[in-house]
């Protein structure tokens, strides 16, 4: 007979308990919300209520664009539901090439590689290009996909304090001469919605002979004159060796990519395991992505309106007395800092009852153990909707006693 073994799930007991306590307090489960019907990029029926969506990454509102939908339908009809294969075997269709062409044009770069998700793009590129004996110098607040890419590779991992230029330089200075260095930065950090001082950081990284990878997931389509991201806005995109991005935010579907001018970049298709050992994106997805990316090239009016929304919501919330993650509106994300998880969950629920969905973010996803209500705006939110949202925040904040 076998002994009574250890339950491998016992390590999750503290989290199970904490979650049960929240639910016992009568709060709707923030992590089990179901959208029964999606009416537009900014409206859905959530748990039975007509709700304004202020917690999606649908920054440019492309999910219901008629041209994008038509492209997807046509690809479904012409190419079927899926490729059932890897990009390097039977999984590269005309649509995948067209999608990569659209990316090359969007960024003005020589190479583009499409992954099945943004997570896999970071996982694959980072773990593959930085090997044993190389160094990865990265911001401590980097996204989980960046950390997982580090963990999967064999390089030495050296984090520095968030957005701290001096701390980054000190670490670069101490790396043994001759070692390969990859500096990993993000344009917009998604928890607080703050941007990186890329101009200074990239210049320093180059001075120490490092290659630079910038994740522009939360800035694509919105920040920079052509929507290429913070690196474009700061005028240094040509010094960035690898830009990582995703289709699941401004582009409005799912998938990830890396664009680069590195002359040997195409070899990645053979050596990058998260690219090789998974099925490629369905034809309808790459068709919608390509169409959306091409439309985003001409999205300057939408970009201007989204900036306007961001400024009004940021100023309005600050005037109401909420504590925000940034002093100024820096992106389409505005993080409202909650005093603790319990009141954060109460506030989240009060907003949902008002008819507003925001993201509840909690440790370990958040920096400094903060509980955040993360608001992400959409170019399709009307000026009037932003005012409605501010009214909802005011009522909910007073009910919960935060303002």
């Amino acid at each position, binding site marked *: 007979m076998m002994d009574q073994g250890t339950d491998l799930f016992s390590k999750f007991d503290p989290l199970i308990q904490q979650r049960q306590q929240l639910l016992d307090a009568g709060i709707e489960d923030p992590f089990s919300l179901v959208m029964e019907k999606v009416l537009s990029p900014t409206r859905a029926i959530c748990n039975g209520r007509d709700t304004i969506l202020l917690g999606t990454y649908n920054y440019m509102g492309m999910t219901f664009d008629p041209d994008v939908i038509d492209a997807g339908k046509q690809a479904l009809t012409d190419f079927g539901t899926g490729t059932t294969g890897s990009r390097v075997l039977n999984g590269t269709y005309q649509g995948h090439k067209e999608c990569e062409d659209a990316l090359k044009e969007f960024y003005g770069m020589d190479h583009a590689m499409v992954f099945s998700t943004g997570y896999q793009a970071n996982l694959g590129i980072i773990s593959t290009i930085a090997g044993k004996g190389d*160094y990865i110098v990265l911001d*401590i607040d980097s996204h989980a996909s960046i950390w997982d890419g*580090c963990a999967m590779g064999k390089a*030495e*991992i*050296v*984090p*520095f*304090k968030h957005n701290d230029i001096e*701390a980054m330089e*000190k*670490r670069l200075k*101490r*790396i043994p001469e001759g070692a390969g260095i990859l500096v990993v930065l993000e344009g917009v950090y998604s928890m607080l919605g703050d941007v990186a001082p890329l101009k200074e950081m990239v210049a320093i990284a180059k001075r120490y002979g490092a290659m630079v990878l910038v994740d522009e997931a939360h800035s694509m389509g919105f920040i920079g004159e052509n929507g290429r991201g913070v690196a474009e806005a700061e005028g240094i995109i040509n010094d960035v060796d690898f830009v990582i991005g995703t289709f699941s935010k401004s582009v409005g579907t799912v998938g990830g990519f890396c664009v680069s001018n590195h002359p040997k970049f195409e070899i990645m298709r053979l050596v990058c395991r998260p690219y090789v050992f998974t099925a490629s994106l369905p034809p309808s997805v790459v068709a919608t992505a390509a169409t959306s990316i091409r439309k985003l090239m001409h999205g300057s009016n939408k970009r201007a309106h989204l900036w306007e929304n961001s400024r009004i919501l940021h100023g309005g919330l600050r005037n109401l007395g909420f504590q925000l993650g940034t002093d100024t509106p820096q992106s389409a994300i505005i993080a409202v800092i909650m005093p603790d998880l319990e009141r954060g969950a109460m506030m989240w629920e009060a907003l949902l009852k008002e008819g507003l969905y925001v993201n509840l973010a909690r440790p*370990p996803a958040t920096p*400094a*153990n903060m509980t955040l209500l993360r608001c992400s705006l959409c170019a399709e939110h009307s000026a009037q909707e932003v005012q409605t949202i501010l009214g909802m925040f005011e009522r909910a904040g007073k009910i919960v006693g935060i303002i």
Partner: protein
Amino acid sequence: MDRAAVESTIRRLIEPFNKQGITLEDSSTFAGDLEFDSLTVMDFVASIEDEFDIIISMNQQAEIENFGQLVSAVEKLQN
């Protein structure tokens, strides 16, 4: 710097992070005895790195659980 000097320097650097005033032994652990969370670890490691002008990569940090191991690691890294 010899081992004794490294040890006394690290003792001084730990002080602001040693909130409970634990008496440090070689076997004192950072996660258990000193109750360091990940943020404290980052700040503490940065202060050691700056003092000795070294890098303690996360790969190396994973091998360091107690005070004695840290002193040995720093002693080795500074050469």
